[in-house]
């Protein structure tokens, strides 16, 4: 039981962490509240389904194709729809909502609303402390850690990463220091959407693929971002596992837990916010006039 809870919470927590970091990134740099973030995660999942079953790719190349495809899609959509209206915060907001609905409907048209599944990279399971742990779960968790580590390396030790952090901290000054703000924003969008795609790719063998799969992760992702504090990757990381653990506890320990899992996790978020209005590790962004 305890191990079950632990595994579920680690898997869910790592998904939320990856999604939340991508979402934070795009919010921090470009000030876009991207509701369509998890819609890209859904598109990546469908893309992998399509390439494995209809085109016969092997799972690994399907994953890479999925991530690349979603990143390019994100870039195109950003260029066409979001960039021209970036200065209008509210318009961007519902633009991304509309985008999420549009992506959901397109997937619905192409693949219908059926529940689909994708094969695991490696089949079989190991027995740890008497509990079955699928290899796929281990791979998923390991790859999440790898991606998170790479993200940290990228943000802390590359020039572009520095530019992204600088822009997130102060857009105007970063611009004055010679960073091309709109190009940095564009790169942040590509990386963020790529991360969403990667999350989809990593998690897809463990879940069912359906057009509405984006809405629950969306809520949890936002809760994670708020709980951890906006713009704090460390915060997102801890908050993701806290909420993932809370969710798993409720599901396993309370009889009608599946209905309450979102409610309990979100109540925890609100309780924390009452005490700390900027989340666990957050800083309040200065309001920009």
């Amino acid at each position, binding site marked *: 039981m305890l191990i079950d809870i632990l595994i579920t919470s680690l898997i869910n927590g790592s998904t939320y962490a990856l999604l939340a970091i991508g979402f934070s990134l795009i*919010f921090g740099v470009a000030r876009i*509240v991207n*509701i369509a973030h998890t819609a890209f995660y859904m598109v990546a999942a469908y893309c992998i389904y399509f390439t494995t079953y209809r085109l016969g790719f092997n799972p690994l190349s399907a994953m890479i194709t999925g991530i690349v495809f979603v990143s390019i899609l994100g870039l195109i959509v950003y260029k066409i*729809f979001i960039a*021209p*209206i970036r*200065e*209008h915060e*509210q*318009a961007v*907001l*519902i*633009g991304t*909502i*509309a*985008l999420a*609905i*549009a992506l*959901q*409907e*397109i997937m*619905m*048209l192409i693949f219908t609303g059926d529940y689909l599944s994708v094969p695991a990279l490696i089949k079989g399971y190991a027995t740890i402390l008497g509990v079955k742990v699928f290899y796929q779960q281990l791979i998923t968790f390991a790859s999440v850690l790898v991606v998170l580590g790479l993200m940290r390396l990228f943000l802390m030790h590359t020039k572009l990463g520095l530019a992204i952090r600088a822009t997130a901290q102060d857009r105007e000054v970063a611009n004055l220091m010679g960073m091309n703000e709109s190009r940095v924003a564009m790169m942040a969008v590509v990386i963020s959407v790529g991360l969403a795609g990667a999350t989809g790719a990593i998690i897809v063998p463990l879940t069912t693929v359906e057009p509405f799969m984006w*809405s629950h992760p*969306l*809520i949890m992702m*936002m*809760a994670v*971002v*708020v709980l951890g504090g*906006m713009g704090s990757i460390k915060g997102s990381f801890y908050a993701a596992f806290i909420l993932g653990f809370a969710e798993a506890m409720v599901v396993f320990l309370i009889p*009608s837990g599946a*209905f*309450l*899992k*979102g*409610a*309990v996790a*979100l*109540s925890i*978020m*609100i309780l924390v*916010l*009452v005490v700390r*209005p*900027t*989340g666990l590790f*957050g800083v*309040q*962004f200065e*309001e920009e006039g």
Partner: protein
Amino acid sequence: MNLLRYHLRKLFLILKNEVFVLPSRIVVLLFFLTVLLLPLLYDDPYMMRILILASIFAIFAASWDLLSGFTGQINFGHALFFGVGAYGTAILNLRAGFPPWASIPAGALVAVLAGLLVGLPCLRLRGTYLALTTLAFPIILMGFVFSVPELTGGELGLSGLSRLARSRIANYYIVVITMLVLVTVMWKITDSHMGIIFHAIREDELAVKAAGINTTKYKLIAFSLSGFFAGLAGGLYAHFMRIAGPSTLEISMSFQVVIWSVFGGMVTIWGPVGAVFILFPLLEFFRIWPELRQLMFAIVVMIVLLYMPGGLLPWLRSKIENECPRCKIRNIATRKVCRVCAADLH
């Protein structure tokens, strides 16, 4: 008799000097007349149903604008108020036997309580934190709705509420007149002293505090007012559909109201109302291609925003009306000089 003549004359003068001089006011007048007279000329049940639902959602959208547009407290979980209103009304109607005229306001009062309950923890949150946190509230409530099916009917919801009125026409008039009255009240609120404070809180909360105004109080008032109107909309919806189900709390309901308001133009009250009356029938029209319906809707919203990021209706208004640079009175775009101060408009 003289009194009547006086009032008629006054009405005529107001129409001539205040209403017919501006195309936007003529449009509002035509809108009022159309929704009031349409069923007398053409009583198609399908069309009336669409108009009734559009009216209910117009109240809902305007109440979002009152809170999020005017006071700047962006609320991503507005479905909470709608759902609480709907469930409150349904429980009072079914369990306590309240008739609709009592259960709907009582349900709205429950929604006010919800507004205060949500408002209190949210007082310390700002901007995007607030938006993302409010998203959580309807989801939390939905969890409880599912976990106590004895009270709330669980997944199926509560059905079998009493009708608003016996006949379809009466139903229509109850909802539409309520909508017109409530929207006018909301518009008046935003135009009042309190509305100015709401405006100021959105623009610069610190400055309002420095001016000696208790912003906490006004923010809570905004939450409760908005909750009240949204709760009324929810109650009307429950009695009209005769069911209060979990769909009233869904995340898509919260997003829908944001789409309507921003599409129509925020901080106007009339913008969201107009947007509902444009988008809701449009969505019904797209029913010709059932599988493309949502997609077309999303694409229309995206394309309109691409060219009119401030919203559709303010954009239209700025095309047909100009503001006088000297006295700030609006004039029809065809005029060369201001209708009040005769300043040159170009």
